[in-house]
């Protein structure tokens, strides 16, 4: 990436802290994600990666610090939350497709009811997105009839149908069989090329190295190190990062 053009700050976290009971999951996170930037969050499990992006979508409520999405601060105000949520797409580890709706209805539900789009328009968009993720032929099936990889691709299409400005991925390939991981990663790579702002929590090092503009390494609820993939994989500064890399590579 050139880094020369000036880009707006899409997501800003300032000193975000979060507790589950007595356990502190986030210990003061400061982070800024710019528009069109792809950030991959790495770290051992239990390090607070998922909690962080779930806070950005307010699926979890942070207790201290501030989070801004596209300039709007996350507060208890319900209207704010709904506005932000329709700007921020999210893909879950367990897909969370709605099992009682067809693939088409899964994708068009939110555009029709939240964005108030005409059905015909929403369906056309859904077809377009399904083509993009490569499974237009499954449109009339139910989630239970699809493989894991196909379900995750539908989940991505469903999130994209809201035309979000940011996409959050919470370990999107962790629940998949190895042969299905690639088909999902390919969709994500294609998405990154179109300039979508993305925050991806993953264990896929290859993906991180190839696609990320910046890598954030978290451990025990803190950001230990961040930098370009090149810096991160070849010349890490922190000992903990080195230990992590030595074990994973």
């Amino acid at each position, binding site marked *: 990436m050139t880094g020369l053009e000036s880009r707006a700050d899409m997501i800003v976290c300032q000193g975000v802290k979060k507790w589950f009971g*007595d356990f502190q999951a986030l210990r003061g996170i400061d982070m800024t994600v710019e528009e069109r930037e792809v950030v991959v969050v790495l770290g051992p499990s239990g390090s607070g990666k998922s909690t962080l992006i779930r806070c950005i979508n307010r699926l979890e409520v942070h207790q201290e610090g501030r989070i801004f999405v596209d300039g709007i601060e996350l507060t208890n105000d319900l209207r704010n939350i709904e506005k932000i949520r329709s700007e921020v797409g999210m893909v879950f580890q367990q897909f969370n497709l709605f099992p009682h709706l067809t693939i088409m209805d899964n994708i068009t539900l939110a555009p029709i009811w939240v964005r108030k789009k005409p059905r015909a328009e929403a369906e056309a968009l859904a077809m377009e997105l399904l083509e993009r993720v490569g499974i237009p032929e499954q449109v009339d099936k139910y989630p239970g009839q699809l493989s894991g990889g196909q379900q995750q691709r539908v989940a991505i299409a469903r999130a994209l149908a809201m035309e979000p400005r940011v996409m959050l991925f919470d370990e999107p390939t962790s629940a998949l069989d190895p042969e299905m991981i690639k088909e999902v990663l390919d969709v994500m790579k294609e998405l990154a090329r179109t300039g979508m702002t993305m925050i991806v929590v993953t264990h896929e090092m290859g993906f991180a190295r190839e696609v990320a503009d910046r890598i954030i390494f978290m451990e025990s609820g803190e950001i230990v190190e961040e930098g370009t993939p090149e810096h991160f994989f070849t010349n890490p500064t922190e000992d903990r990062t080195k230990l992590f890399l030595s074990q994973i590579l």
Partner: protein
Amino acid sequence: MDEKREQLDWVAAAEVEGEKPPEVPPHGPVVWARENLFSSVGSGILTVAGLIVALGFFKGMLGYIFGADRKWDAVATNLRLYFTQAYPEDQYVRVWVAVGVAMALAGLSAAIWRANGRITGYKLGGGSFGLAGGLLTLLLLSPFSWRARLIYLLVALVFIGIGQYLRSVRPKLEVPALGVIVGTLAVLVGSLWVVPYGKHTFVDGQVQPPRPGTVAMTTKLPWTVMLLVMIVAYFVGKAVRDKVSPGLAKGLLSAGWMLLLPIDYFVILRDPALDYGQVFRVDVPIFLAFAVAGSAILWWLSSPHRGEIGRVVAGAMVIGAGVFWLAAAFGLSVRQIVRIDLVMLAVVALAAPTFAGEKAIRRKFIIGWVVILALVNYLAMMVNTPSTVDVPGSFPLGGFSLTLLVASATLMMSFPIGLILALGRTSKMPIFRLLSTTYIEVIRGVPLITILIFFKIILNLFLPDGMVLGNEMAAILGYSLFSAAYLAENVRGGLQSIRKGQYEAAAALGMSTPQTTSFIVLPQALRAVVPPLVSGVIATFKETSLLFIIGLFDFLRIGYVVVGGQTAFVGSQRENLLFVAFIYWIITFSISRSSVQLEKKLGLGER
């Protein structure tokens, strides 16, 4: 990949140790109230509305219970009627012996099954706070005198103090749960010596103090003895449990629980007058004949080399026994016990191939047969001997004891029937399935009351001449056949939850279908359906109140009709109903609570 991740977890955990302790976010009653009561405007409105409802309910309820014109004397005076109806006073020690047997079994069971649950000080403190809260509600909302309120307040403060001490100073303290239970019981029993709960006679509008002397008239001494029996039994069990094999001890105790009902009722409470000449001339010879001949046949059948012939012989025995049974209708006069023994032998013979194997197993099988035979013959003898206890009316029990008798007899009888029905409905054999399905669906489709009326009024029409079933027995039969259908559906749920792999594994080990069913499928299925089975038990217990409708003197009828109809207590129906409801509630609530505990325990056992 996975291995690597595990290592990383370990690294992460190690790192956390060195970090500064996490900052604790602010907590406190105000925060708690804001989060749980007033999180939004709607929630606030709900809170206020809920408070008004709660205050109104408790104030009305307590105002009613402690109102000056309530006739609680009706309950207090009639406690004996409530629990045992007209069981004669001079024989009342039998009731206590019957209860004592159950107490001893309970104590032994607690020891043998090692009831070693523990309660933390933190939890005990919570309980103490709860008690204090209850007392405070009581003193705030009940129409008490100020003096009484002051006393309640002091007691509540003491409990708050204890709770605070346990929570803040000794939260990690661990007390055996059994100790807490026995302690509570001891306090209750001890209070009998101080507080006169039951006033025993009521003459000319005056409550008379209990007459001294008979055991029947005062309960404080017997209940103290009962508690001691339980404690002694516990320590006996504790002393013995390491010296006998746990399997044997548990088996014997389970058998004891199964036999508790018939022994208590037929032997202790009915006190049959045995004619020993008759016993040695008829009963003992019949038993010996079946014991010896039956053992020989079973020994032969359970030989591992018997193969297909064994099954054929066993099948022939079943048909023979059935024909022999029906022959009575055509004038063949044989003692009933002979017929029963024959059918039993045939059924046990059917099971013989399942137990075929080495000598030790076969010997156990034979011993089992002789023990069951002895028990059945003994009980049959006791049942057929007239009772010496002279009770007005045809049935020695009434009130709560009748309710308990019907409930437990129903549970014992419906279990095997329900099991067979469930196996039939899930079997691959279409005729069995058709028969069980029809039975289950018909029974589940009609109200219990129609079945009870059917059994009470019409059953005797269907019986052979000379055979009469008492109302109580007819009711038990009706209840059993009814609950069996529901139980079958519950068990079926468990049977269907068994995965195919289990059957395949058993087949791969060369097990026969009966063996697979009894050793692999049923144990797992029953374990899986413990919660619905317990709800079934609760439902059956509550349904015993329908005895009232068919005119039997159960707990409800005693309260609603008998006590409510006494001239001294006209208009006390609500009080009596509340008492009946309270007793039912205490029992069903504790059953459902302990089932939740059991569920947790079983759930842990699976992992």
